């Protein structure tokens, strides 16, 4: 068994939540630059310039890209030959978030659903844990903003709806959201599984670096078709009109029950923060 100490895990999470919030990934910088070249609206072009400038400024001044530093989502693939020692796995992650959000001057954005009292340390954290072969621990650290999450949706379609039904729901969800989720967005789509798995598939689709094509040819073609449809809407950067409403559509698909066709649409704003680490 390979040992990973809980203390080390805390340190890694702390470092990654800060880095994710201050440093926009190269994949997103590239995607915004490409969008700048495609966009025809003058206001849209200016907005894309400002977003690139914002990313530079955030990194140079060590200020978060966006004030909504998110609810932290962690996807963890834990090798079955790894043993977490000297502490509890979940607690180690939450401690990393607690310390990182304090020391990194990140906004604490988590509260009680009804009293709205802030938990004060940005916990709890949403952790999705998968056990995999091997002796490594792979982590994706994803601070997810509330504005784009609010515009996300899940549909349990009848199987007869087929691809056209799925397409209609995805496009409708993104267009209806309009300016609210800070376009240009990345659209994570989960197809199949069941009610909860479908949502996880959609969220996990957002982890793929933007511009990296889907390795499955069938899904790649579907992604291209959806992106084209979405960008016909005219919503544009910040919803003020333009060609680039979304920068990419990412699909994850798996088999589902013979009675169902679940589809989940998880919208991600242009402050698309995700960091991958391998321990």
């Amino acid at each position: 068994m390979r040992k990973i100490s809980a203390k080390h895990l805390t340190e890694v999470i702390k470092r990654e939540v800060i880095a994710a919030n201050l440093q926009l990934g190269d994949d997103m910088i590239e995607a915004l630059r490409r969008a700048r070249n495609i966009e025809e609206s003058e206001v849209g072009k200016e907005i894309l310039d400002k977003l690139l400038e914002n990313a530079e400024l955030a990194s140079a001044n060590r200020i978060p890209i966006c004030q909504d530093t998110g609810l932290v989502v962690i996807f963890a693939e834990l090798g079955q030959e790894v043993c977490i020692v000297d502490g509890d796995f979940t607690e180690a992650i939450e401690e990393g978030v607690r310390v990182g959000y304090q020391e990194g001057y990140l906004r604490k954005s988590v509260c009680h659903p009804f009293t709205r009292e802030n938990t004060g340390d940005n916990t709890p954290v949403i952790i999705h844990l998968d056990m995999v072969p091997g002796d490594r621990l792979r982590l994706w650290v994803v601070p997810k903003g509330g504005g784009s999450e609010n515009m996300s949706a899940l549909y349990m379609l009848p199987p007869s709806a087929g691809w056209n039904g799925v397409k209609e729901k995805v496009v409708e969800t993104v267009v209806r959201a309009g300016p609210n989720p800070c376009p240009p967005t990345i659209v994570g789509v989960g197809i199949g599984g069941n009610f909860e798995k479908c949502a996880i598939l959609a969220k996990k689709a957002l982890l793929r670096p933007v511009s990296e094509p889907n390795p499955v040819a069938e899904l790649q073609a579907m992604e291209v078709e959806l992106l084209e449809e979405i960008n016909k809407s005219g919503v544009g950067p910040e919803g003020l009109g333009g060609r680039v409403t979304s920068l990419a559509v990412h699909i994850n698909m798996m088999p589902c029950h013979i009675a169902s066709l679940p589809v989940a649409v998880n919208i991600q704003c242009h402050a698309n923060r995700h960091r991958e680490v391998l321990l």
Partner: protein
Amino acid sequence: MSSSHVIGLTTPLSVKDVEGLRAGDRVLISGIIYTARDAAHKRLLSLIERGKSLPFPPEGQIIYYVGPSPAPPGRIIGAAGPTTSYRMDPYTPRLLELGLKGMIGKGKRSTQVREAMVKNKAIYMAAIGGAGALMSTVIKEAKVIAYEDLGPEAIRRLTVDQLPAIVVNDTLGNDLYEDGKKRYQII
């Protein structure tokens, strides 16, 4: 948003100031503005219902929908971009009746809010959502004036210098989100 027709606005705003603005105008706002989002709005409305005075008089003022991140040492404020405005819709018409003249946020407003803007002569402006680091550079002073217990949702008095925004809803009922989308829609 730097461009040819940029209109400078200084707070407080008069009826004449807002009536002269049209959806699509780019503005640079200077002076004092107040922050409030979900929880603060709920408390403001509760004060109004009980006939109490508000932490700031709304006449002629601008509310900026923002919950900034904490200020790192040596800085005035952290990231401070707009939050989505529709969540404040249920509270907004009452504030407009009390003379609030402007709001800065992002995203669509309800029909009721748009009608209340026409009726009470007020405007809604969008700032660039997600450009929090950039927006922090135009904020010259920030002071919590109410509801400190709400943390990021506390009401802050901000002094801003040339805060860039674009008029979305004007006093005639125009809506830039609708017009902009139509212009680039491919049917």
